[in-house]
């Protein structure tokens, strides 16, 4: 056990995975991952080639170029950086190159905002990556290590990104179990990938394909992502040998759901505050439990139906938006469930939500569900925020 931040935990995972090449570019709040890697390199602790590129677009370019040429490759980014990299994120998925990326989430401008929000991460849902989201520095380390194994599995061969809440996880230090190098070496087989760009193989990647072949290739990614559910559970069980305290048998995580009539759905670090709120509400006799989404892609449809399908109501908290429609998690849940689903958007741009705020938001939502009158998605501002007066002109000619 070591007291470290989420970013330090991720850097350690990269070291333990014996990554060949990392393309790095600074952006808050991910920067300390790459600083840590550069530090390790300077001290000679890793043989990883650390490439300090000139943009996130190139960070993924370097990472992808190395990955298709036969080595394990990693990068990390946040917010504007992820959006600037967007084109290459898709190119990596289409290339079917096993790559691991960590996203320390942060709100997207304009206006400037460095605080936490998950919209950046969630905006890559359609790109063709496996996507997991951590709720603690420990999980950030565990998921990063598992990501190499999952993305390099021949049944998958799809890149994988791991999200974690900016600052709240990336910079907050907690107790983290650091696996031994020996255990990780046993857990992670040597690099596997579907093809290698190399004069020996003479294989090329990415020239033009016929429309029907293109469609078949896209379907193949889709099937690989859906099929990855089994691989993720299998790797999760296997991972218990690396970290005996870990539980990754299922994609998502249930908390006091068995006897609950209502469920709260969350993702990421604030799940812990929500869990405390659930505890307090249960003390008051409210039959509520919590379901934490860990995997966005693949989407654990069956797990979700089993866990939430019989609840009288499901309240989904999103720290992200699909503006004009609601939170992405809420939309996904509504597509999976036939029972009443209430969406709440909260905590954008760094607005903090504590246990009391969750209790309040959950109670209000429960009232709507019980009345059978679920209103539109609620934009929830915590109790301490009395009134928001921006003081900017409301109209301009």
């Amino acid at each position, binding site marked *: 056990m070591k007291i470290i931040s989420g970013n330090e935990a991720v850097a350690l995972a990269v070291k333990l995975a014996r990554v060949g090449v990392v393309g790095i570019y600074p952006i808050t709040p991910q920067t300390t991952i790459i600083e840590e890697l550069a530090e390790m390199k300077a001290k000679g602790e890793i043989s990883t080639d650390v490439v300090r590129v000139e943009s996130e677009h190139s960070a993924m370019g370097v990472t992808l170029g190395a990955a298709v040429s036969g080595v394990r490759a990693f990068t990390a980014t946040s917010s504007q950086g992820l959006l600037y990299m967007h084109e290459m994120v898709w190119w990596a998925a289409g290339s079917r190159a096993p790559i691991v990326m960590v996203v320390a989430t942060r709100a997207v401008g304009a206006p400037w905002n460095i605080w936490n929000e998950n919209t950046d991460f969630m905006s890559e849902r359609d790109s063709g990556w496996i996507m997991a989201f951590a709720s603690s520095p420990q999980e950030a380390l565990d998921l990063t290590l598992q990501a190499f194994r999952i993305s390099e599995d021949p049944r998958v061969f799809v890149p994988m990104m791991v999200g974690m809440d900016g600052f709240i996880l990336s910079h907050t230090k907690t107790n983290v179990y650091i696996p031994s190098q020996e255990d990780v070496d046993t857990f992670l087989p040597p690099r596997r990938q579907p*093809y290698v760009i190399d004069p020996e193989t*003479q*294989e*090329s990647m990415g*020239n033009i*394909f016929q429309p029907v072949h293109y469609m078949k*290739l896209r379907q193949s990614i889709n*099937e690989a992502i859906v099929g990855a559910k089994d691989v993720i559970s299998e790797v999760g069980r296997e991972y218990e040998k690396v970290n005996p305290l870990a539980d990754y048998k299922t994609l998502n995580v249930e908390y006091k759901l068995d006897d609950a009539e209502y469920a709260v759905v969350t993702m990421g670090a604030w799940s812990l505050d929500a869990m405390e709120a659930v505890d307090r509400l249960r003390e008051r006799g409210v039959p509520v439990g919590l379901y934490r989404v860990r995997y966005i892609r693949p989407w654990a449809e069956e797990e979700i139906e089993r866990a939430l399908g019989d609840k009288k109501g499901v309240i989904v908290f999103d720290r992200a938006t699909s503006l004009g429609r609601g939170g992405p998690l809420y939309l996904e849940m509504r597509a999976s469930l036939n029972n009443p689903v209430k969406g709440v958007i909260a905590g954008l741009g760094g607005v903090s939500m504590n246990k009391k705020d969750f209790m309040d938001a959950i109670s209000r939502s429960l009232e709507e569900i019980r009345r059978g009158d679920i209103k539109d998605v609620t934009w929830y501002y915590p109790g301490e925020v009395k009134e928001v007066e921006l003081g900017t002109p409301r109209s301009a000619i």
Partner: protein
Amino acid sequence: MSLEYQFFPVSHPSEGAGGKTGNWRVVRPVVGDRCIGCNACYLWCPEGTIGVKGRRAEVNYEYCKGCGVCANVCPVKAISMVSES
């Protein structure tokens, strides 16, 4: 477990992957007796469809588009462009 669903955007070297382009031609290069086998045509041909075999240049009419660069660069004017029709 069957991996039949797995496809990758990978291609392998293959002659004529760009499609047979010979039917684009309106004029064809014909190598005459004056050819000295200097390979200038080979060097300049944009398609790689002409080259010296033995002592004389030969054209691969399956892929030659009939652009006429070879006839122009030939130092001894051994190549003439002849109408296809």
